[in-house]
């Protein structure tokens, strides 16, 4: 198996190598920070026309995960669209793709900081989603057993190459990687991120396989990673 199965609260969850989270018992697939329509928003705001294929790419990834897991519920954990205008200007192919993915299953859009408010597309808009003792919301709060996104965590295993998007968890909190094609990342060791956790942090790296690694086990990663904001 190229996934990583772990306990979270009372539940057993599976981190997929794509960056999606699968909750087998509830047949729920959760993805965060799709940022659909990002290229469109950049063109609108800056005049720079990036390759306009990121929505297609992101939906193709999602389609593959849906085909693999056949979920009853798909939960998009906020920042699904780069902004509301981007949601309105999806092209027909992408809209049709999204509609076909939604067919026959419950589809939840959690609100994000980029896309608050209801959407014209199918699916149900929710502020957060509570289920089986777990809370799903876009930005981490103080709630126990909470699953969120927003920060786009990434991590590199010391001495093995470049950083990859990753899940972060200390057993009480779980932060998902950004799922969208045009998304960057924040170092997991950045205090902004690591400061959200109280227990020992595990990172589950995405890629060909989901690889689980303790975040603080090795000094060099912490030293290198602490750099951007470190003040002593």
């Amino acid at each position, binding site marked *: 198996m190229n996934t990583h199965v772990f306990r979270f609260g009372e539940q057993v969850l599976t981190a997929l190598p794509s960056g999606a989270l699968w909750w087998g018992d509830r047949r729920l697939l959760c993805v965060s920070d799709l940022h659909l329509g990002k290229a469109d928003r950049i063109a609108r705001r800056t*005049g720079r*026309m990036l390759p306009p*294929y990121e929505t297609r790419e992101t939906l193709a990834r999602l389609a593959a995960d849906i085909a693999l897991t056949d979920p009853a519920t798909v939960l998009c954990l906020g920042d699904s669209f780069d902004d509301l205008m981007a949601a309105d200007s999806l092209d027909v192919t992408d809209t049709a793709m999204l509609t076909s993915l939604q067919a026959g299953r419950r589809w939840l859009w959690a609100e994000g900081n980029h896309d608050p408010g209801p959407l014209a597309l199918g699916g149900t808009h929710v502020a957060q989603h509570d289920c089986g003792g777990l809370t799903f919301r876009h930005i981490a709060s103080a709630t126990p057993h909470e699953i969120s996104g927003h920060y786009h965590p990434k991590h590199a*295993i010391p001495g093995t190459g470049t950083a990859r998007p990753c899940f972060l968890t200390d057993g009480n909190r779980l932060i998902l990687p950004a799922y969208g094609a045009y998304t960057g990342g924040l170092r997991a060791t950045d205090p902004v991120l690591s400061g959200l956790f109280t227990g020992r942090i595990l990172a589950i790296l995405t890629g060909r396989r989901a690889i689980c690694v303790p975040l603080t*086990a090795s000094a060099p990663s912490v030293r290198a990673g602490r750099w951007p*904001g470190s003040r002593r």
Partner: protein
Amino acid sequence: MELPPVIADWFATQGWSVHPHQQAMLDRSDAPALLLIAPTGGGKTLAGFLPTLAELADGTHQGLHTLYVSPLKALAADIKRNLTTPVAAMGLPIRIEDRTGDTSATQKRRQRADPPHILLTTPESLALLVSYEDAPRMFAGVQRVIVDEIHALAESKRGDQLMLALSRVQAMAPDLRRVGLSATVENPARIAHGLAHHPYPCEILFADPGPDPDIAMLVTDERPPWAGGGAKYAIPAVLEQVKQHNTTLIFHNTRAQAEIFFHNLWLANDTDLPIGIHHGSLDRDQRQRVEAAMVAGSLRAIVCTGSLDLGIDWGDVDLVIQVGAPKNVKRLIQRIGRANHRYNAPSKALLVPANRFEVVECVAALQAARDHDLDGDPPGPGPRDVLCQHILIRACAGPFTADDLFAEIRTVGAYSRLSRADFDACLDFCATGGYALRAYDRWKRLQLRDGLWHLRDPRATRDLRMNIGTIQDTDTLKVRLKGGFKPLGEIEEAFAATLTPGDTFLIGGEIVRYESLREMAVEVTRRADKPPKIATFMGTKFATSTQLSQRVLRMFRQDDWPDLPAHTAEWLHLQREMSKLPEADRILVESFVYDGRHQTCFYGFAGRNAQQTLGLLLTKRMEEMGLDPLGFVATDYATLVWGLTPVADPAPLFEDTALHDGFADWLAGNAVMKRTFRASATIAGLIQRNLPQARTSGRQATFSSDILYDTLTKYDPDHLMLQVTREEALRGLVDFGRIEEMLDRTRGRVDHVILPRVSPLAAPMLLEAGRIPIAGAGRERLMEDAATRLMTEAGLDTL
């Protein structure tokens, strides 16, 4: 043309006579384009300016008369100084000003309203000038343009950009005549073709080349080390040379090497000789202080890099020392020309190899210099990323028709064979992004109205102007003293990321201690209590030329090497004894275990860039063959690959068809392509240049250009930017031409030597910087192993 009396008289009072080539420039001053080839110190710049001074002497010309363009800001400033003095002495009514990135905004605004007679500038500043709506007013009366050190621009995108900008100026000033000033080059006709206003010709004038330079290799008591680039061993001998000469320039190939050498030189400088350092990563003020001290003659030596390559007059330099192999004979000759600006006296230069291999290369370069065997590769057609930028610059200046712009661009040598289809594709890219999926109808950058192309949003000009230029800056951070304001210089962001408070590094020749990062600047103190880490600067890495590589391989055929110092000859003997010496018509492959990895060294002698490509190709093949390569490093003569499985038989790796077939697929996925894409996409205006002030702290908001590259490759493989990237990579960083040349001369003849330990020739490779990781099965294995180990160590393996 005769010199007006006021100038001729002044020459006479100075005891100067007009050199024959200077007279020739006056005589042919009405030619549409002229190229002067003259050695450094041959009065080249004056030859360029004499016709301008003559034409302006009567004070009747109003507005801008002559544009002077140099590759360096410092050169423009220097020329201003050297020109203003005699013009003032002669009492000529000529206003001379410079305009570079360093010129104040007030001064720049004033220059546009009221331009001087002579404006000294750089290609980037000129490109910016032609982007203004009022450019036609400023350039209307321009008579002449002088492109100084044109050889330094001719082989780069800066040169292409300059010539495109000149085509714009020419359209606004049809009488413009062009003059190029060049050092000795292997193919003057090629430069003339680039300078000409097609279809008009460009004449070439040659000055007397002067006597041959006096070049030798510096002989030291101390032996050069096996590896490394610091040349620390030569410090006492270099100091001795500095003492014996008035002023010495000590050239290095990279900024990092210059820093290390300067540091060591300073430690050994027990007689307190005044020695300075000058390179492009230092702060401007600091550079200017060094330049001023140099002009004043108060420095005995200056440690420098290519930033001093060009013809700035630093006073009485009587020795040039080149530390590290020169890589390219032509550049060596041009650097050597920096010594002794007295015409008709030989320049004196010493080569200091940094390690044993460089001893061989230095000796080969000396032979080539004596034989006047200069090197050079033919240029390709004008790059389309620069063309795209030019189209956007044109759009900033106001509406235009595609036909006019196309006709204008075809007058530029490098673009004289540009097809209308290629031009239209570039225009479409600028207007719509040029994607197969027409997604941006609402947000087009350029719109066609009544036959004229307009910017959709005029506010875009600000962004576009900020993005002008073709020089790729790596992401750097300013370094400043804690509590201080003035920066000491810059270091690369990637290097800064490896620093922990307390770490020390070298900058501007001093050891500083990293304290913190504040507002995108690295704060340091002067407390130096640890040996320094070395700041790594990207700096351009030149590949050793084909001609020089061939000379080295020819030397290897000798039974003995009387031309080489004994230690180096012994080293080659040892290599021959322990393994083999590489041959021109065979590929030598050595395998050994080091650092717990299976190492394989491939000697291709194809130059750094091609060896790097070879590394990427070979590791891809190795990946397919299950050899789990982890990474590689390339130098000018070899590629070293390491992995988890030994290479039993390297011959199949080199099968011609296999290498070729894999090439296209491979090309799409590798790191060099991504780097090339980033550069071209930035030039073409797809990606915004990474301006320090534009960087945000919310790092998750930005994403890597690699993602754009991967997306385009998958969804729009024929997109213009990918075409440009492939074209670029093939002749530049990828240099597949030289791999083909290598395959051609070796024809599958592979010698594989399995060694119990590293060979003498391979040893330097282990210390080489610039290791490239391979993201394949081996890396995956390594990550999983590391993760398992870390989980076990943390007691989490049973979860």
